[in-house]
Each structure stands twice: as structure tokens, then as C-alpha cells.
């Protein structure tokens, strides 16, 4: 592999990283908001969200990415590939994250909530100061798990023409006729990214031990 191949690989890795990163950030936040809305049990909206969550969880990423990219023009939208890719990843991961947040909510200690209310905290202050900090810590293993699924599933966005870390190996070997070296490097780069997440997970678990009263 020459310098330009390395350069292309790193560029592919960067594409995977930023598209996944944006999708993760939006998906974790949107999942929390959906979980909150679902807890309010607003009649019609609740059923719609349940429908979305089961659809999104049942649809393969490749299919979802293709569907979004190809159906956009029908709705008069000219979607940039990257936007379509991020949308697909976000729609997919949000559904899983919403379930993770919702179970963290439902399992949150009633006693602690009562203690917060008894000191005069409003539901919003209770959520922000007492519940959320602990829910983040208890949900992190599940959320990080979902993040690594997203990153490992992200090559699906190549189907709409995004040159990510997997797709780029194809391009390199098309020139060099040596498919093995680039794919090997790609594997190592994926492992480095996931490794970072696993490390974060371990730190999170160590902090979570404190919450076991």
C-alpha cells in the first residue's frame, strides 16, 4: 500500500467516525426525548411511537438507507448522501435507545424520587438533578453497546454511495489488486474505535458501582 492508499483509508475512517458520531449524538438525545414522551402516555402519539419503534427495530439498515435516499425525491426533497446516511443511522439507533432509556426510567427508585419531592423539588428539577445523572450511568452499558452496533452496522450506508471505512478498501484494492492489506487495516481501525467505546464502558461501570446502595 502506498501513501495515497493510507490517506484514503484514514479518510474512510474519518467518514465512518463523524457520520456515526453525529448519528449517535442525535440518536441518544432523540431516544431520551421519545422515552419521556412515551412515559406521558399521550393517546395517539403513544401508538405512533410504538409503531415507529417496532418498524425501525425490524428494518435492516441497508434497506432503511436505500429507502430514505430513494424515496426523498418523491417527497420533493433532494437529500445529500451524508444527510440520508445520518438519517438512516439515527432513525435506527433512536428506536433502540428509546427502549434503553425507558427501562432506566421505569426502574428508577421510587424512594429516591419521593425524597426529592419531599425536599420541594419540582418534577423537572428531580429529573434533571436526581434522575438523569443516575440514568446516564445505569444506561451507559446498554447505550454504548448500541453505539458499537451502530458503528459496526455503518458500512450499510455505502449502499447509497458514501465511501466509508469499509467501502474505501474496495476502492483501494480496485487499483492495487491486493484486497487483503486495506481490509486488514480497516479491521484494526474498527477495533480501535470500538476499543475506545469499551474502555468508556468500563469507566462507566466502575462509576455505576457507587449507585448500588
Amino acid at each position, binding site marked *: 500500500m502506498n501513501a495515497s492508499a493510507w490517506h484514503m483509508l484514514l479518510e474512510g475512517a474519518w467518514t465512518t467516525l463523524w457520520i456515526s458520531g453525529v448519528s449517535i449524538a442525535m440518536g441518544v438525545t432523540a431516544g431520551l426525548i421519545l422515552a419521556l414522551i412515551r412515559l406521558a402516555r399521550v393517546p395517539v402519539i403513544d401508538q405512533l411511537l410504538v409503531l415507529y419503534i417496532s418498524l425501525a427495530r425490524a428494518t435492516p439498515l441497508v434497506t432503511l438507507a436505500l429507502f430514505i435516499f430513494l424515496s426523498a425525491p418523491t417527497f420533493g426533497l433532494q437529500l445529500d448522501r451524508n444527510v440520508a446516511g445520518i438519517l438512516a443511522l439515527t432513525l435506527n439507533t433512536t428506536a433502540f435507545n428509546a427502549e434503553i432509556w425507558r427501562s432506566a426510567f421505569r426502574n428508577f*427508585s421510587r*424512594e*429516591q424520587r*419521593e*425524597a*426529592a*419531592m*419531599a*425536599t*420541594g*423539588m*419540582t*418534577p423537572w*428539577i428531580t429529573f434533571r*438533578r*436526581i434522575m438523569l*445523572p*443516575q440514568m446516564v*450511568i445505569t444506561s451507559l452499558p446498554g447505550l454504548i453497546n448500541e453505539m458499537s452496533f451502530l458503528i459496526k452496522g455503518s458500512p450499510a450506508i455505502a449502499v447509497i454511495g458514501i465511501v466509508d471505512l469499509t467501502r474505501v478498501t474496495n476502492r483501494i484494492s480496485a487499483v492495487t489488486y491486493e484486497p487483503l492489506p486495506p481490509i486488514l487495516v480497516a479491521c484494526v481501525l474498527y477495533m480501535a474505535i470500538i476499543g475506545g467505546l469499551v474502555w468508556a464502558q468500563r469507566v462507566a461501570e466502575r462509576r455505576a458501582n*457507587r*449507585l*448500588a*446502595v
Partner: protein
Amino acid sequence: MSDLHATAGRQATPEPPAAGNSHVTTAAVSIRNLSKSFDDVEVLRDVNLEVKQGDVVTILGSSGSGKSTLLRCINWLEQPERGTIHIAGERIGMNADGRPMSVKALARVRARTGMVFQSFNLWPHLNVLHNVTEAPIHVLGQPRQEAEARARELLDKVGMSHKQDAYPNTLSGGQKQRVAIARALAMQPEVMLFDEPTSALDPELVGEVLGVIKALSAEGYTMVIVTHEMAFSRAVSDQVVFLEKGLIIEQADPETFFTRPRTERVQRFLERHQ
């Protein structure tokens, strides 16, 4: 210590006295005609109780008598079906028009009560100092420095200042409960509510918590205490209330209650708990 007590009585903001009930403004807690059911079971039946400023009232009764429910109604953790509760003259839970209070208004009245739970209910993600300062900072809007200075005084009062940086999971039950007491005191409540504060403790840890509560009573704090500790109740109370099946069947000063109970029910109860 005495200066702490001086700041403990926060400025009361009573609602304009409605005709006929202006007398409620004098009591720290005034409970009128309170009734509460869980499904079909009546847990509280037409309960009336006045707690004067500075008084200590202990509520006794066998389990299932409704005593914890009564206490939890006072700060509206349980919502009664009928009756009214005033905290230092201010009605909790319902507006004058009989509609439920907004969550903000309810939180504001709740802030005038402090509660100590059987299972401590400290917030495990915060250290001891921050458990105490959390509500003063985020509910009362106290500056952090001021809240921390006051929290240290309170932790000193309950004998826990050496543990201010510790997290709850490293504390014993008795230590947790003493921190929980400091947390409740930090809001400078009109009344402290104790829900069986020593029932979850190992026997050798009960004394340290009861000792703290006794010290508070000597300082003039208004307290309502649900307990099974008879000797403690007798030593600390101005008034003893006995609940049976949701009814107050006996209410007296501790001397009378423990030596000359009127009802046979209380006589039997005391014999079993001597």
C-alpha cells in the same frame, strides 16, 4: 447550636385567612377531617390533628393502622380523598377552590416540610455534603458557598461532618439516617416528619439516630414521628397519638398515655411493647 435554631423558623407566608378558619394559622400542622382509601380499604377515617409550633408528636399503632399514610399525607406524598392539611397556615395539595395545586405550588409548600424515611433514601450519585446542599441550592436558590457552610454546620450537628466527602454506599445505616436528617433540616422546614426512622437499622445503630432526634427536640424543632420505639416516644413527645384502623383512638401527653391509657386496646398494645 442555638443560632441554628433561630434560623430554623422560616418566614411563614400564610394564605389570607378565610372566614372561620383563621385559627389554623397558629399550628405548624393542622389536619382536618382527613380520609384516605386504598382501593376499597379505608386507611384513614376522619382524622383530626393539630401540631403546635415546637411540639413533638409521636404516632403509634400496629402496622397497617395507617400511621405512615397519615404522615405521608402531611407532605402530600399520599393524596387524601377528603379533608384539609395546612402547613403553618398554608394549605397543601389543593387550592382554595378545591382543585389540585400546580406542581410548582405543591413543591413550594412541600419545601416547608422535611421528611426522613425508613430506608434513608439518600441520593447515591451525590456525596454526603451534596446530598445536603442539593435542595437548598436548586430549590431555594441559595448560593453554593452559603449552602455548603450551612450544610457543614448541620452535618456537625448530626455528627457526620467527618464524612462529608463520602458517598452513601460507604456509610452504615445509622450514618445514612443522620445524613438524611441533615438533608431535611437544610431546607429549614416548619415541621420535620419522621417515618419509622430507626426501623431499618441494626439494633446497635438505633441509639445514635434517636439521640440526634432527641437533641433536635431539645432545640425546639417541630416534629411528627411515626415510631415503634416506646421508651423514645415517652421521652421525647409532647403529645402521643394512637392510630387503630385509620382512627385516632387515643391522644394524650406521654405521661397519661403510657401510665393511664383510657382504652383497653392501648393497654394491650403497651403490654406487648414493654
